[in-house]
């Protein structure tokens, strides 16, 4: 495998680190309130909005796991992964609705608490934090492992550097810096991925790839590949659940200028759709190039490095560093918002001033960074598997959030039960069948519970409670049944 010299790798890290931290500091100079820091002043334009949504969805998963799933599930794996774009596309009308219902909203936790009351809010927080921490830790670990594989950099040094850079510019610039760096990172990722795919087609060719795969990995071209058939819709629901429930996407819906959320998410989804096809496709060139990865998630970088030699390794290094950073910073910012708003303001200090909230927000980013770093240190391989595990959690939130945003009759008890039972059934399927069905079973159970709840419920929710950002936590958010609908 081609490796980058350690001094070159350190040089690239230092260059991008300084660039992004300075950029974050420069952008964050005008942050005065929590609104500025957490939601970029609620005034993000269409170009930046589309780019940040797209860049955030291009994670290390897109650059590492899309090739892995193609390597394991073939054509279905590639298509199935790209279908995660449906999460962004379906979230488009919801982003508009969120901004309309909650113009002063901060987090998805605000919505769940006001819309469904405390029991559902507690279940939702467990789902949300489990997912956020799992994703953060897997990103940090992936950074360290990848830098070590490509450059020989010590795992702890690589992981620490990536985390430190992301924490620093998120700390200085808040969401404004996250969105702006996402824009640049999107361009880097797109150019890098396209260059690799172009060289793959030019140097290896479709015929050679087809011949090699059909001899050595015949199932990858088989459309009747059972596990891959099961995987397709599971991945769609996993992607939709990730986006529908996560504060990463809600905070952007609040931050985007009124009227552009729908278009921004639609554009981001459509532009994102072909990216996993491109990154996944290069995995099919592995047998033709004589690349046999030690673990399936390394196939993408190994093929790219093989195709482009020393330059390829540098390109992969920069692309994956950008992909990791664009997701890490977004997750740090969104998870910090959720902790600050839902835990600190919601439970500890409801009367906190906006200036004080800004300080708490920054401290939370730092604390999250430190917590992630500590959890990444032992390099627990089981944490990588944790991400697949979260599919069972997040898919259970799809229906409660969909009905919660548009339907007055879904009550808090049903929402809480749908999330809890959906998660349990998803986990059961994960252990009994495989990771590729957990989200599907979770979503199905949640749908059945919501259906029964809607059928039996006479409750009517008053949307005005959301607009006014009702803070009375003793009220579950539901009014007496009425004829209003």
């Amino acid at each position, binding site marked *: 495998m081609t490796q980058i010299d350690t001094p070159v790798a350190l040089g690239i890290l230092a260059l991008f680190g300084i660039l992004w931290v300075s950029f974050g500091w420069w952008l964050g100079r005008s942050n005065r309130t929590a609104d500025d820091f957490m939601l970029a002043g609620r005034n993000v334009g269409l170009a930046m909005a589309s780019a940040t949504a797209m860049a955030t969805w291009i994670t290390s998963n897109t650059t590492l796991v899309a090739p892995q799933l193609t390597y394991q599930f073939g054509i279905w794996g590639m298509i199935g992964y790209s279908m995660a774009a449906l999460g962004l596309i*379906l979230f488009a009308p919801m982003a508009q609705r969120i901004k309309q219902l909650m113009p002063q909203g901060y987090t998805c936790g605000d919505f769940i608490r006001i819309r469904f009351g405390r029991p559902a809010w507690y279940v939702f927080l467990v789902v949300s934090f489990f997912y956020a921490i799992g994703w953060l830790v897997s990103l940090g670990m992936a950074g360290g492992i990848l830098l070590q594989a490509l450059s020989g950099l010590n795992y702890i040094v690589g992981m620490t550097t990536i985390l430190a850079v992301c924490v620093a510019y998120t700390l200085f610039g808040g969401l404004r810096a996250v969105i702006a760096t996402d824009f640049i990172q999107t361009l880097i990722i797109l150019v890098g991925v396209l260059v690799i795919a172009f060289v793959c087609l030019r140097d290896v060719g479709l015929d050679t790839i087809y011949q090699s795969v059909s001899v050595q990995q*015949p199932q990858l*071209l088989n459309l009747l*590949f*059972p596990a891959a058939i099961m995987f397709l819709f599971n991945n769609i629901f996993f992607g939709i659940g990730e986006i529908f429930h996560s504060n990463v996407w809600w905070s952007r819906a609040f931050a985007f200028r009124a009227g552009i959320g729908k278009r921004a998410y639609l554009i981001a989804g459509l532009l994102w759709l072909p990216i996993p096809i491109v990154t996944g496709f290069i995995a099919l060139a592995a047998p033709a190039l004589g690349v046999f990865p*030690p673990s399936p998630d390394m*196939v993408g970088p190994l093929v790219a490095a093989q195709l482009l030699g020393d330059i390829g390794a540098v390109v992969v290094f920069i692309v994956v560093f950008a992909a990791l950073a664009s997701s890490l910073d977004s997750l740090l910012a969104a998870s910090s918002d959720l902790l600050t708003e839902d835990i600190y303001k919601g439970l500890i200090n409801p009367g906190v001033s906006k200036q004080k909230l800004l300080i708490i927000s920054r401290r939370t980013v730092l604390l999250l960074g430190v917590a992630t770093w500590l959890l990444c240190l032992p390099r627990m391989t089981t944490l990588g598997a944790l991400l697949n595990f979260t599919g069972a959690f997040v898919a259970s939130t799809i229906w409660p959030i*969909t009905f919660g945003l*548009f339907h007055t009759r879904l009550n808090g008890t049903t929402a809480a039960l749908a999330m809890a039972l959906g998660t349990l059934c998803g986990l059961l399927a994960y252990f009994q069948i495989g990771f590729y069905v957990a989200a599907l079973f979770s979503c199905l159970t949640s749908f059945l519970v919501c259906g029964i709840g809607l059928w039996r419920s006479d409750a009517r929710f008053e949307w005005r409670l959301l607009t006014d950002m009702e803070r009375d936590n003793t009220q579950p958010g539901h009014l007496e049944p009425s004829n209003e609908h």
Partner: protein
Amino acid sequence: MPLRATWLLTSVALFFLAEASWGLTAYPFELQTSTELATEGFLGLSWQPTSGAADDRHISLQVATTPDFKSVFASYNLVQQQQVSLSGLADGDYFARLLDHAQTPVSNIASFRVQHRDLGAAWLLFALGAALFSLLLGILVSLQKRARQNGYLNNNGKLRDPN
């Protein structure tokens, strides 16, 4: 007593002889599979040196569909690796071993079976997923339409009293 002592000494001698001869014929690498039954067509193979220093920089992994390796399915040249991930395998029994640069076997033979999941069950889950996804799409569209019609929001996104 002497008979018992002779029997004991003979047993001990045979034990050490067996151990010694095993040491002489043992391969430099011990090859292992991550699973004996791969239901998704992918699995991992890993190997560790059994004893002493072995040149593991250039070895190849040979995979065959018969234990005598007369029907070789694929050979993988591996440099500085101690594990490899195989995927896309069709149903069947497979046998794997490591060879050195002179094509001499340097590991034990590891075997595994690939038996994909039932296609009928897979299509059932596919249909379930497709139905659930269609429901989600249909419900999202109808809920959006109804919300607009019921006047909770006007076109500018301002809340309007439905009464």
